[in-house]
């Protein structure tokens, strides 16, 4: 029989403050960065000072006697190509961090400096010709159009800016037992990757454990040990002492991932009776030296005909990694701005035109009514009717106000996860899963789910996550953890409870099927009941363990896929200074069954704030002269301070019948596009290229 969530939920859907909140708020939470095992050494990495070079000579021998140095490790040897400024060359471990930094300066390296590419625009000229994706004939589509609009839109490469940088502490407990404290979104995979690495896979009976009870943000960039992690493990092995290697802030910007840029030239056609009939796009972007910069297009909306050609271009810069809803914000930035330009020229209702042209295939028929609800609610909350006007605020004076809206979508399917729920004879309950908490709230989610099924309070269950030896779960990415972990823990609890019912039924003189768990008691339909403690005492000495596996076919209906989200922005632009001020953002989000309302809302706030950052501030700048990143810090790589942020209103739509769907990525998707449209609505011209710095606003106005 298929497993189901209970009809009436006591814990799921309520607001449960983070169970680890007090540990974080008092500074007691130990992140990987905070681990200082006895005898700890500090490691640093020597990185390429050139955007593109070859190593001609390198001498690590000379620093082996440098004060404090205990081990060295060559990452790339003579002849190796260095593909970007910041590419790893060698690592050194020393008694203090200061000594490790000094030791790097004592390494002599000879480079052959090679030509480099920093500009996406230049790289495009030599990019291989890609295939064209086509739906119908765009020529026919454009022929039907009443209005055709062309526009250019772009967003630059941005970086993850995880506050806890990438890295780990490697601690060999013996020759074949390795403990890692890694800042990772995937404890199981990180341990497996280290064990399988060429340097260590020949070690017989090697046991690697990764422990990550806390980690300071990943956003898609922390799925394995990385080059620096492997280096730290090797240094620790050589020195026979624990080694900490956490990246410095500049290294984090250079080497720890980024979101690819997107440049698009779009032609879009529609009819006055509200049909999107043709969409033609040529796009490119860079994901660094290996190039990949894909993003879906057309996005959310379904033109009758479409054509799209996309170039992945390579530049000499650090490689891309998934960043919160990989590809989708770029899609929204391109698609929504083009839609908005078309809507403006057509003179049709922006909201109705959007609702009418949502895609008709895949998950979109399910999402259609959800989008409609979201758009109507969002429009009401941002006071669309009152404040929206045709493009260009006609009010006298330099301050121009405008509104914009945008939609996003994400799959959010439940990811792979197994979990165990153990019920002990003394009434204790443990729920364990090899997942991790990125700040998303998994630590709180795990006991919540078990408590719901077992009829207990959240604090009656001990949740155990963040250790690779627990029942394996996948990495936390793509908004897949909440679904996968909830299902695995939920079913493990249901199985354990069924075993408990078998034991309790004879005591209460009924069949197991007559029993239910509620409010800390096991209750029979015959009116008799036992307290949880007394019920568990029937186990005598033997605990019972239920195992749940997300792959189990019987549990598929407990989660869903495909969410829609709408966001609205209200902005004021000073057309004399070019300053953009966001007055208010409204986010309406769908995530199927809401698990923990408080934490779910926090995710949405976080997504909106991330989108504001990318719309107004964030940009990786490469130096045309050297190819090196100009702003690898947090001064010139800007993110919002409190005073930069507007009022943000979050509305969660709860659709319990859709099952659990992740919420990490969706709220990050449409915000920047909504802001872009609000800016155009305010100033009367399309600015098009993000981020909306005063210079870009003023340049666009000058062309008006």
């Amino acid at each position, binding site marked *: 029989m298929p497993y189901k969530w209970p009809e009436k939920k006591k814990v799921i859907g309520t607001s449960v403050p983070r169970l680890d909140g007090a540990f974080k708020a008092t500074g007691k939470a130990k992140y990987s960065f905070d681990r*200082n095992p006895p005898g700890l050494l500090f490691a640093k990495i020597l990185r390429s000072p050139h955007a593109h070079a070859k190593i001609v000579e390198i001498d690590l021998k000379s620093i082996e006697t440098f004060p404090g140095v205990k081990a060295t490790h060559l990452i790339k040897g003579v002849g190796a190509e260095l593909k970007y400024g910041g590419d790893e060359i060698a690592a050194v471990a020393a008694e203090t961090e200061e000594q490790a930094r000094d030791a790097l300066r004592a390494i002599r390296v000879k480079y052959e400096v090679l030509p480099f590419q920093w500009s996406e625009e230049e790289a495009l000229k030599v990019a291989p010709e890609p295939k064209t994706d086509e739906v119908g004939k765009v020529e026919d589509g454009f022929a039907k159009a009443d209005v055709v609009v062309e526009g250019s839109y772009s967003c630059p490469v941005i970086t993850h800016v995880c506050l806890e940088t990438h890295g780990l502490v490697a601690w060999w407990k013996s020759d074949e037992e390795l403990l890692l404290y890694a800042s990772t979104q995937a404890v199981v995979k990180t341990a497996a990757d280290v064990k399988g690495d060429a340097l260590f896979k020949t070690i017989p009976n090697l046991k690697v454990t990764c422990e990550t009870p806390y980690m300071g943000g990943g956003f898609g960039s922390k799925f394995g040990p990385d080059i620096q992690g492997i280096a730290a493990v090797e240094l620790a092995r050589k020195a026979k002492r624990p080694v900490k290697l956490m990246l410095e802030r500049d290294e984090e910007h250079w080497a720890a991932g980024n979101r690819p840029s997107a440049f698009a030239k779009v032609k879009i056609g529609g009819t006055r009776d509200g049909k999107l009939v043709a969409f033609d796009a040529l796009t490119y972007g860079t994901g660094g030296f290996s190039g990949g910069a894909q993003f879906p297009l057309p996005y959310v909306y379904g033109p009758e005909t479409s054509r799209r050609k996309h170039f992945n271009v390579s530049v000499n810069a650090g490689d891309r990694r998934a960043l919160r809803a990989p590809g989708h914000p770029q899609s929204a930035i391109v698609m929504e701005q083009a839609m908005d330009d078309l809507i403006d020229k057509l003179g049709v209702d922006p909201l109705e035109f959007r609702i009418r042209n949502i895609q008709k295939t895949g998950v979109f028929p399910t999402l259609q009514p959800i989008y409609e609800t979201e758009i109507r609610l969002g429009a009401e909350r941002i006071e669309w009717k009152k404040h929206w006007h045709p493009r260009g605020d006609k009010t006298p004076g330099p301050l121009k106000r405008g509104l914009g809206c945008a939609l996003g979508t994400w799959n959010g399917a439940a990811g792979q996860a197994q979990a165990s729920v153990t019920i002990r004879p003394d009434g204790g309950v443990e729920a364990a899963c090899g997942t991790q908490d990125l700040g998303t709230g998994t630590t709180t989610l795990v006991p919540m789910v078990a408590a719901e099924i077992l009829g207990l309070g959240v604090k009656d269950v001990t949740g155990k996550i963040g250790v690779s030896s627990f029942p394996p779960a996948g990495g936390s990415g793509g908004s897949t953890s909440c679904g996968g972990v909830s299902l695995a823990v939920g079913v493990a609890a249901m199985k354990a409870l069924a075993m408990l019912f078998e034991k309790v039924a004879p005591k209460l003189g009924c069949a197991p099927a007559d029993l239910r768990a509620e409010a800390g008691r096991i209750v029979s339909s015959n009116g008799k009941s036992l307290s949880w403690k007394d019920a568990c005492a029937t186990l005598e000495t033997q605990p019972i363990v239920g195992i749940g596996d997300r792959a189990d076919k019987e549990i598929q209906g407990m989660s869903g896929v495909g969410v829609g989200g709408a966001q609205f922005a209200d902005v004021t632009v000073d057309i004399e200074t070019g300053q953009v001020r966001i007055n208010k953002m409204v986010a309406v989000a769908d995530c199927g069954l809401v698990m923990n309302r408080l934490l779910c809302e*926090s995710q949405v706030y976080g997504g909106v704030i991330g989108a504001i950052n990318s719309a107004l501030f964030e940009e990786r700048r490469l130096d045309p002269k050297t190819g090196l990143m100009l702003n690898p*810090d947090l001064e010139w790589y800007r993110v919002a301070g409190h005073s930069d942020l507007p009022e943000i209103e979050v509305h969660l739509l709860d659709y319990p019948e859709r099952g659990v769907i992740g919420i990490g990525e969706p709220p990050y998707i449409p915000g920047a596009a909504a802001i872009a449209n609000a800016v155009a609505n305010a100033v009367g011209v399309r600015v098009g290229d993000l981020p909306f710095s005063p210079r870009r606003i003023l340049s666009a106005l000058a062309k008006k």
Partner: protein
Amino acid sequence: MKKKTRRPAKATGAKPGFSRRNFIQTVGIAGVGATIPLMQGCGTTESGPDIPAEGVGPTPVDVALNVNGQDVRIKVEPRVTLLDALRDHLKLGSADPVDLTGSKRVCDRASCGACTMMVGGKTVYSCTTLAIEAQGKEIRTVEGLQENGTLHPVQQEFVACDGLMCGFCTPGFIMSGAACLEKNPNASRDEIRRALDGNICRCGTQIRALEACEKAARRIKGRR
């Protein structure tokens, strides 16, 4: 500003499709130079050693600090920051280890506030304060906010309002908020906002961090 009439979109005669050539001509971030010679600065070059083989600088010196009311003595190089001294040298270097890793190192150059401590009653970026400078002053870290095991009102509200997600920025936010409200529990929303302006959060907890501080202010006022 005067408005010019914009060119109407062409409904007819628009060529379907784009070439890479006209694409390159029309797309691109304004203000970025279009052509850069690829062969700039090529050839062979050397780096290092730019430091003597025996290392640099004065050797470790004795430093006496008063942290959260406790006297500690450590031996660190004079260039060691207050942040690194407390995070890495207390536990490792002292006979009576204290483990103070609550303050975080994020930007390491006074841009993000994750390392915020109170030194002599004022908030400082401890990543750009030397340990030797902090001698003779009262140093307060996030670990020192609790009184008799009870969370500081700002800490309590951060937990209750969910003003924290991954938690890595949280100690810094809490120190900034606590310093602001201890000085002035009547601080307005804008004053609290300004107090928190030097702190960066990447998960996006700012809205609720502000809410938490406002609620904490009410609690502190009620207590007095």
